């Protein structure tokens, strides 16, 4: 279904000159020689409906869709690789590209209609709101109540170490840009994060690069609990198909909501079609309610999202704070202390 994740246990700032290897690639032939090159963190199976819809509307255009990890994407755009659109769920890295002036402005009636929190300086455009959720396999929780908050979770895990040992999964924040964003934002928002990390660390957790593998492992029963999964409709659909074996939880004390954002790199050679593509994404994003697209809309009004009552992470310079190498080094050191516990 998808290629193995690239493991890049390296910080963003001290990257070796390794050649970039895409995780996945798709080309949709058009009738003219115009090409739209898209670099994205979204898996092909999630994004194909969007590409096909755009292709139907613009049949003359060649579409080249490259899947990369968020850190690869950031590195590629920073080093001047030629793409027309960059789509990523790692808001901090996207923001840094914009802040450093590696993006082009784009203005259209569609971008004007975005709410303030979903755009920044006409260079970053959010088109989904996706919450961080906890995926649990109910079989492991037999006889226990399903935790609703981090405090519940800490207690359940602490009281049942034998049951949950080795069956907890979470992001390896050293690899995953999105995992790092979730972790830093959560650490900032709630002090329960470090206590939970300590508890999980004692249970010898499995570390993942990506949401999709965590979801697979919960579905197969290998994991009891996956912490901080990107809750897209894919996860919801899988949970629905599991006949109650898998549940999606949103922590009631605090829950991150990220914005998947698109931008036009300054190297773009086809900015006009890139703008049209962004307009197409936004028109889907601003639709009313959920209706068959794999990713949630921008104004997520589903009961799960609204009951939590947490706004999405703000697009702004504060996102750069944890990208600072000193801060990153400090945070990762603390995280390793808590989770890895060699």
């Amino acid at each position, binding site marked *: 279904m998808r290629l193995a994740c690239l493991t890049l246990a390296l910080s963003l700032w001290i990257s070796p000159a390794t050649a970039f290897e895409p995780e996945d690639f798709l080309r949709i032939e058009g009738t003219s020689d115009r090409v739209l090159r898209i670099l994205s963190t979204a898996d092909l199976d999630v994004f194909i409906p969007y590409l096909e819809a755009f292709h139907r509307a613009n049949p003359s255009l060649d579409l080249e869709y490259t899947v990369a990890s968020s850190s690869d994407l950031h590195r590629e755009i920073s080093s001047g690789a030629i793409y027309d659109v960059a789509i990523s769920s790692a808001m901090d890295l996207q923001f840094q590209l*914009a*802040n*450093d*002036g590696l993006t082009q402005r784009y203005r259209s009636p569609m971008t004007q209609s975005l709410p303030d929190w979903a755009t*920044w*300086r006409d260079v970053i455009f959010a088109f989904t709101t996706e919450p961080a959720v906890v995926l649990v396999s109910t079989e492991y929780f037999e006889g226990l109540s399903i935790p609703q908050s981090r405090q519940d979770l800490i207690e359940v895990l602490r009281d049942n170490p034998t049951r949950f040992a080795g069956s907890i999964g979470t992001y390896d924040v050293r690899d995953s840009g999105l995992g790092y964003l979730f972790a830093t934002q959560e650490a*900032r928002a709630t002090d329960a994060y470090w206590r939970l990390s300590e508890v999980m660390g004692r249970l010898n957790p499995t570390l993942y690069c990506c949401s999709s593998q965590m979801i697979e492992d919960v579905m197969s029963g290998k994991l009891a609990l996956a912490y901080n999964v990107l809750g897209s409709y894919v996860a919801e659909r899988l949970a629905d198909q599991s006949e109650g074996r898998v549940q999606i939880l949103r922590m009631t004390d605090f829950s991150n909501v990220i914005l998947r954002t698109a931008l036009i790199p300054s190297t773009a050679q086809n900015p006009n079609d890139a703008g049209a593509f962004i307009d197409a994404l936004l028109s889907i994003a601003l639709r009313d309610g959920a209706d068959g697209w794999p990713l949630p809309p921008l104004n997520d009004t589903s009961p799960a999202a609204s009951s939590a009552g947490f706004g999405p992470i*703000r697009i*702004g*310079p*504060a996102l*750069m*704070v944890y990208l*600072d*190498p*000193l*801060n990153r080094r*400090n945070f990762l050191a603390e995280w390793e202390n808590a989770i890895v516990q060699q």
Partner: protein
Amino acid sequence: MSEAQQGTGSIGRRLTLYLAIVAALLSLMSWGMVAGFARQAAEETQDNVLAAAVTAIAETLRSEQGELRLELPYSAFSMLGAISEDRVFYRVTANSALLTGYADLPVATDPNTRAGEVSFATQPYRGEDLRMATLSRRILAGNQPTLVIVTVGQTREGIAAIALDLSRQAGLLSIAFFLVAVLLSFFAARTSLRPLNEIAGAVSRRGPSDLRPLRRPAPDELAPLIAALNRFMDRLGQSIRRSEEFIVEAAHRVRTPLATVRVQADLALRNVSGEAERNRLRQMIRAIDESSRSAGQLLDHATVAFRADDLLRDHISLKILATQTATTMTPTASIKDINIDLKAEDITVAGDAVLLDTALRNILDNAIKYSPEDTTISISVEAKGDYGYITVRDQGKGLGDDPAEVLTQRFKRGRNTENIVGSGLGLTIAADVLAAHGGHLQLSNNKEGKGTCASLVLPLL
């Protein structure tokens, strides 16, 4: 009022224009000042936030086991993001070596700034103007004194946008202020010019012979104008009175000797037997009659002018008036075998009996003059609506084609009056008298058959 006046424009318009220009200048000035303040305030806000951010970062500096530790505080950057959507850059150096941040960020070091004090500078960076705050701090790392310089820069685009937005709002406000000021100027100009218009109205409403001084409250600025106007009217009145007195005097002096000449001519006519001489004397008598008649009418006219100024308002029965006047005219009529027929209702008006008699006498005189011999002149006195009518109908030639207004002008005579003596003053005198009483003279051709129909129309009591 303004007929064919060579105007130099309206004072009201000029006043409004000047006030509007003043308002425009003030609006422009206030807009400029508000826009300047807004810009200054926005820039000061940015400076304050930058200073707070740079201070917050410098305060996290510490030395741990001889190593310099720094943690960028989240709040420092989130407050920069809160004021505007501007790009943020930072750099921290320790003894000129980069600790973290953007290595190529220009650092403007002001030699006058001491450690611990924030200095500001604006420099271009990555294609945009960057406002930068710099703070230096000395810290001991191990035994090494280290100079740490923290710089945080933010682009000014968002700030400029905020200032522009404020300035645009101030601009709209100034335009609104200007429009209100123009409206108020217009009203102010109108209000201050109202006394002038009132005086002009009062003067123009006056009757043609009303030369009384103007007595009404007026602003100080208009007092000289009113005084000058009153002096002018006084002089004009005196001048008119003098010329009228002169006319009366002249008419008198002409009339009295004429009467003597007339008597002598009559006597001579009786005593002279030669037909040629008699004819010559008759022509003489006709000319004398004409002259004395003209002198009489001049006298009448002067009398009307005098008495109309200060009109008596006695109750007068038109029936009695018409009867008396008709009686005095009967001898003249009978010379031409003209019968005067009077039908009168008893109607009362307010007025001057002497003037009304003069008016009616002149009309009757005309009627007799233009009537052929052996005809009837009928006089009727009746009330119609709010007016009383004394109508005199003759069986003469009628008015001809001339409009009635022309006939009532001074010294104007109809075109069908050849061979008939007349001064052209009769109808003028009658019309003046009626106008002084608030009435008018109606002239028309007789509806049944030929002749003229003249009506003296007077408002009833």
